[in-house]
C-alpha cells in the first residue's frame, strides 16, 4: 500500500492553485456513470455529498441518524474561522496558517494547513449564499469575534449556534441534490464494514437500524466523514451516538490510524454530578474572557465547600488561588485549552477541588460584574452608586454577553451563576487523531477518502477553537470534490461493481458473525457498564496526563476488559430488529480496540506536545517538553489484530516555512 503524502511541488502559497489547475478531470458524461459512497452527513459529509451531486456524480449517502440534519456538527457553539481580514487587524492566509501550525504544537503538515487557510475564505461566501444567518454589525456587514490562541478577530458566528446554522446550510444543499435525484440518501443505516476489491475501496456493509437487515453497497470509491472518537472516554462533550466504528473498520481493513492519542480536553465543561451521567456539557471558551479561574488555597476550605458547609463567597480574597493568573501572568485565564485543563487537574489532584466529587474549579464572574457595573454607572452619570446598584448594572452587561450560557448552566446545575461562581472541569472534546490521509485526503487504501474530524490532517497535537467547522467544510466543499478526480479519472472504464461479488458476501458474513457473537454471549453485564469502565481506564491513564507505567497498565486492563466483554456482556433483543443496545455493543467493541491503540501511541511518543502530556517529559516548571529531534513525525499505525502489536509507519514532518519554537504563555 502506498504511504506517500503526495504533496505537490512548488512554493507553499502556490501549491494548491497550481495543483488544481493541472489535475486530471472527469468529463461530465463519465461522471454520470461513476458512483460514490459518502458515509456521514455532518459538515464534512453533507458538504461533500451535496457538492459531488452538483458535479454530476451518482452519490449514495449514509448516516445512522434519522435525518442528515442531526449529525453531531449541529452542536458546535462558538464559531468558524476564516482569513477574511474584514476586521482589518492584520489577518491573512499566512497568519491563519501560522497560528494553526503553532497552535497544533508543530505536529501537522504544512501544505494541508496552508490550503485550509486559503479556502477558509470561500466557506464564508458559500455559507452566506446558502442563507446562513451569521451575526451582523449595525452596518449590515458580517461581525467577527476572537478566540483563544490568536491575536486577530477572525471568527464568524451565528449566536451560540454556529454549527447548527452551518449544518442546516449544508443539509439544505444536500436536500436539494436528493430532490434532484443526484444523491440517494440512506438514513438510519450504519456502516459496519468496508469492502475492498483488488486492493481498492469499493463498497461498504451497512445495517438498516430499523429492520436489522445487513445490506451490501458497491461504488467506485468510498468517502468517510464519520466524525471523532471522543466517546472512547465514555464521558465527553460529544453527542451520545458519536463513535469510531466506520474509521475503525477501515483501520481493520488496512487503513492507517494516525496519532490516535492526540485528544483535546476542553477546560470549561460542567463537571460530572453522579455515576448515572453519560454526557458532559461544554461551556463556551468565550467565558474565559471575563471569568477568573480559582480554587481555595487551603485544603480545609476546599473540603468545607465539597461538604456544603461553605460556599465560594465564604472564602476571603487572600485565601483564593487564581492559579492560571499566578502560573501564566502573560496570558492569565486565556491560555490555550491544553494548558488550562492541565492546571485545573493539578489543583484538584492537590485536594483543592470544589465539587462533591473533588473534581471542579471555580470560574468566577464577580470581578467582571462589578467592573462592568462601575463602568456602566460612570457612563450613565450615576454618582456614588451602592454596591447593589453596581452589581445590578454589571449583571445586565454580563447577561448581554453570556446570557444563553448562564441560562444553560442554571438549567443543568440548578445554581445561579450570577450569585455563585460556576463550577467547571475539563472534559474530552475533540480528537485530532484519525485516519491518515495524503494531500488528496485519500487514505493509504486507494479509493478510500476521509474528511472532517475523522481524518488526522490539520490540527496537529492541539486544535484551535473554531477551526473544526472550518476544516470540515473546507474538506467537503472545496478540497475533496477536486482531489477525488485524481483517483476517479483512472476509473472511468471501470464498470459498476457487483454487490454480490465474493468480497461483498465475505464482508457481510464477517459482520453477521461479529454481531451474532455479541448477541450470543448472553452474560450478565450491560454494554453501558463496559463502556463506563473503558472510559475510566482511558481517562485515568490516557487522559490529561500520561506516563509510561500507567499506559502499560492501561493496555493490560483494556485487554482484560475486552475479554470480559466477550465473556459476560448481555445484549437484549434480537439482531433482526430495531435494537439500540446492539448498536451500542458493536460500537463499544470497536472502542476497546481503538482504546488500546491510543495507549500504544501515547506510550510510543516519548515527548509532550499539545494535548499529549507525558509526565516524564516536562520542564522544571511543569510545562510540556517537545522533542523535535525524534518525534516530529506523524505516527500512522497499521493494525494487526488482538494478538499482535500494531506496526508504526512514520511520516516525517518537514517544516520549510515556519521555525519550530517552544510555546510559552508565561
Amino acid at each position, binding site marked *: 500500500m502506498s504511504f506517500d503524502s503526495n504533496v505537490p511541488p512548488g512554493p507553499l502559497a502556490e501549491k494548491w492553485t497550481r495543483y488544481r489547475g493541472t489535475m486530471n478531470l472527469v468529463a461530465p458524461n463519465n461522471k454520470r456513470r461513476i458512483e460514490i459512497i459518502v458515509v456521514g452527513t455532518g459538515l464534512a459529509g453533507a*458538504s461533500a455529498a*451535496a457538492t459531488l451531486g*452538483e458535479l454530476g456524480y451518482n452519490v449514495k449517502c449514509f448516516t445512522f*441518524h*434519522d*435525518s*442528515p*440534519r*442531526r449529525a*453531531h456538527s*449541529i*452542536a458546535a457553539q462558538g464559531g468558524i474561522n476564516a482569513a*477574511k481580514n*474584514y476586521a482589518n487587524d492584520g489577518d491573512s492566509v499566512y497568519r491563519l496558517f501560522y497560528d494553526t501550525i503553532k497552535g497544533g504544537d508543530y505536529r501537522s503538515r504544512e501544505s494541508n494547513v496552508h490550503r485550509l487557510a486559503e479556502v477558509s475564505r*470561500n466557506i464564508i*461566501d*458559500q*455559507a*452566506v*449564499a*446558502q*442563507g446562513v*444567518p*451569521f*451575526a*451582523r*454589525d449595525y*452596518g*449590515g*456587514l*458580517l461581525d467577527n469575534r476572537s478566540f483563544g490562541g490568536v491575536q486577530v478577530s477572525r471568527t464568524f458566528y*451565528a449566536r451560540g449556534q454556529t454549527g*447548527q*446554522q452551518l449544518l*442546516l446550510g449544508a443539509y*439544505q*444543499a444536500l*436536500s*436539494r441534490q436528493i*430532490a434532484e435525484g443526484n444523491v440517494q*440518501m440512506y*438514513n438510519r443505516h450504519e456502516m459496519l464494514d468496508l469492502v475492498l476489491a483488488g486492493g481498492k475501496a469499493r463498497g461498504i456493509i451497512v445495517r438498516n437500524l*430499523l429492520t436489522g437487515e445487513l445490506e451490501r453497497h458497491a461504488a467506485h470509491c468510498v468517502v468517510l466523514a464519520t466524525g471523532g472518537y471522543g466517546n472512547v472516554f465514555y464521558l465527553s462533550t460529544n*453527542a*451520545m451516538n458519536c463513535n469510531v466504528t466506520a474509521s475503525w473498520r477501515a483501520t481493520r481493513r488496512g487503513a492507517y490510524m494516525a496519532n490516535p492519542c492526540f485528544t483535546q480536553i476542553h477546560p470549561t465543561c460542567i463537571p460530572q*454530578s*453522579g455515576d*448515572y*451521567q*453519560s454526557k458532559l*456539557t461544554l461551556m463556551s471558551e468565550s467565558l474565559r474572557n471575563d471569568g477568573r479561574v480559582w480554587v481555595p488555597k487551603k485544603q480545609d476550605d476546599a473540603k468545607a465547600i465539597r461538604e456544603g458547609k461553605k460556599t465560594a463567597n465564604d472564602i476571603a480574597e487572600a485565601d483564593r488561588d487564581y492559579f492560571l493568573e499566578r502560573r501564566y501572568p502573560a496570558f492569565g485565564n486565556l491560555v490555550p485549552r491544553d494548558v488550562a485543563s492541565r492546571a485545573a487537574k493539578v489543583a484538584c489532584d492537590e485536594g483543592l477541588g470544589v465539587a462533591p466529587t473533588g473534581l471542579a474549579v471555580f470560574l468566577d464572574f464577580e470581578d467582571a460584574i462589578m467592573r462592568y457595573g462601575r463602568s456602566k454607572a460612570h457612563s450613565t452619570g450615576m454618582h456614588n452608586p451602592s454596591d447593589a446598584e453596581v452589581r445590578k448594572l454589571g449583571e445586565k452587561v454580563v447577561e448581554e454577553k453570556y446570557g444563553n450560557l448562564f441560562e444553560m448552566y442554571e*438549567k443543568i446545575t*440548578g445554581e445561579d451563576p450570577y450569585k455563585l461562581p460556576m463550577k467547571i472541569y475539563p472534559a474530552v472534546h475533540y480528537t485530532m487523531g484519525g485516519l491518515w490521509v495524503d494531500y488528496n485526503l485519500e487514505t493509504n487504501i486507494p479509493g478510500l477518502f476521509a474528511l472532517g474530524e475523522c481524518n488526522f490532517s490539520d490540527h496537529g497535537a492541539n486544535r484551535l477553537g473554531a477551526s473544526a467547522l472550518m476544516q470540515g467544510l473546507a474538506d467537503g*466543499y472545496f478540497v475533496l470534490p477536486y482531489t477525488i478526480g485524481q483517483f476517479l479519472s483512472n476509473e472511468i472504464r471501470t464498470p459498476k461493481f457487483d454487490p454480490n461479488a465474493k468480497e461483498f458476501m465475505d464482508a457481510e458474513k464477517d459482520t453477521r458473525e461479529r454481531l451474532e457473537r455479541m448477541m450470543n454471549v448472553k452474560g450478565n453485564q*450491560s454494554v*453501558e457498564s463496559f463502556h463506563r469502565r473503558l472510559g475510566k481506564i482511558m481517562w485515568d491513564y490516557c487522559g490529561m496526563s500520561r506516563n509510561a507505567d500507567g499506559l502499560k497498565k492501561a493496555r493490560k486492563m483494556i485487554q482484560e476488559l475486552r475479554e470480559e466483554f466477550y465473556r459476560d456482556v*448481555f445484549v*437484549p433483543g434480537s439482531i433482526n430488529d*430495531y435494537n439500540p*443496545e446492539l448498536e451500542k455493543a458493536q460500537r463499544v467493541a470497536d472502542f476497546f480496540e481503538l482504546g488500546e491503540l491510543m495507549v500504544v501511541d501515547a506510550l510510543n511518543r516519548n515527548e509532550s506536545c499539545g494535548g499529549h502530556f507525558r509526565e516524564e517529559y516536562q520542564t522544571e516548571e511543569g510545562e510540556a517538553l517537545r522533542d523535535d529531534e525524534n518525534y516530529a513525525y506523524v505516527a500512522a499505525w497499521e493494525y494487526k489484530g488482538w494478538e499482535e502489536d500494531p506496526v508504526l509507519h512514520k511520516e516525517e514532518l518537514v517544516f520549510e516555512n515556519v521555525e519550530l519554537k517552544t510555546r510559552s504563555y508565561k
Partner: protein
Amino acid sequence: MKLTLKIWRQKSPKDKGRFETYQVEANPHMSFLEMLDVLNEELIARKEEPVTFEHDCREGICGTCGLVINGQPHGPNQGTATCQLHMRFYKDGDIIVIEPYRASAFPVLKDLAVDRSAFDRIIQAGGFISVNTGAPQDGNAIPIEKDQAAKSFDAAACIGCGACVAACPNASAMLFVSAKVSHLALLPQGKVEAKRRAQAMVKQMDAEGFGMCSNITACEAECPKEISVTNIARLNREYLSSSIGTETKV
C-alpha cells in the same frame, strides 16, 4: 425520590401498543433522560428489553429527543427540550406518563421512537436556496440589516424536533414549515425563490398527511426554541401571494 412511570410500549409499527408501569428511584440532579437511562439499566439487569427512546446531543440542539410527558411534548418547562429537563422539577411519589408523539405523519417505530422523515421530504421539496458550491460573491457584498438578520436567525433556530406537530390537535406542521420559509425569505439571498419555496413546501406538507392550521397556537407554547407563530402569518402571506400571483396582503 421514588417515581411511578407509565410508559408507552410498542414492539413495532404494526403492534397495537399499551402502557406499562415501572417504578424508578431518581435523584434531583438527574436529567429526565438520565432517569430513563437508570430505568433501562434496571430492565437490562432483569434481562428485559429496555425502553427505546431517541436522543443524541442531550443539549437541546439536535432535535432528536422529544417525548410527550404528562400530555406535554418536551414536558412542563417552557423553551426546554426533553433532554434539558431535570428531575428537580418532580417530587417523590409523582406519577409520570410518557408517550411518543401522536400524529399520523409521524408513525411510531418502537416504544417512544417515531419516524419524522416527513420533515426531510418537506425540506427536499424546496427548503433551500438554489446555489451550487463554487465561487459566489463576497460574503459582505450584500449588507443585511442587523435586526433583519436576527429575525431570520430566530426562525432558523428551529431544531426540527416535531413537537409543534405533536402539540397541535390537528397535527399541523405549519410552525416548522413557516420557520424554514421565514428563515430564508427574510434574507435577500432567499427572497428570489420565496414564493416558489412556500408553495412547494406547503404542497409536500399536505401530501405527508399533516393537518390544517386553525390558529390554536399550541405549537408555539410547546416549541423548545420558542419559534413564534408570527412565522405562520408570514408563510400565509408568501403562500397566498404565490398562489394568487400578486402581492396581496392578508
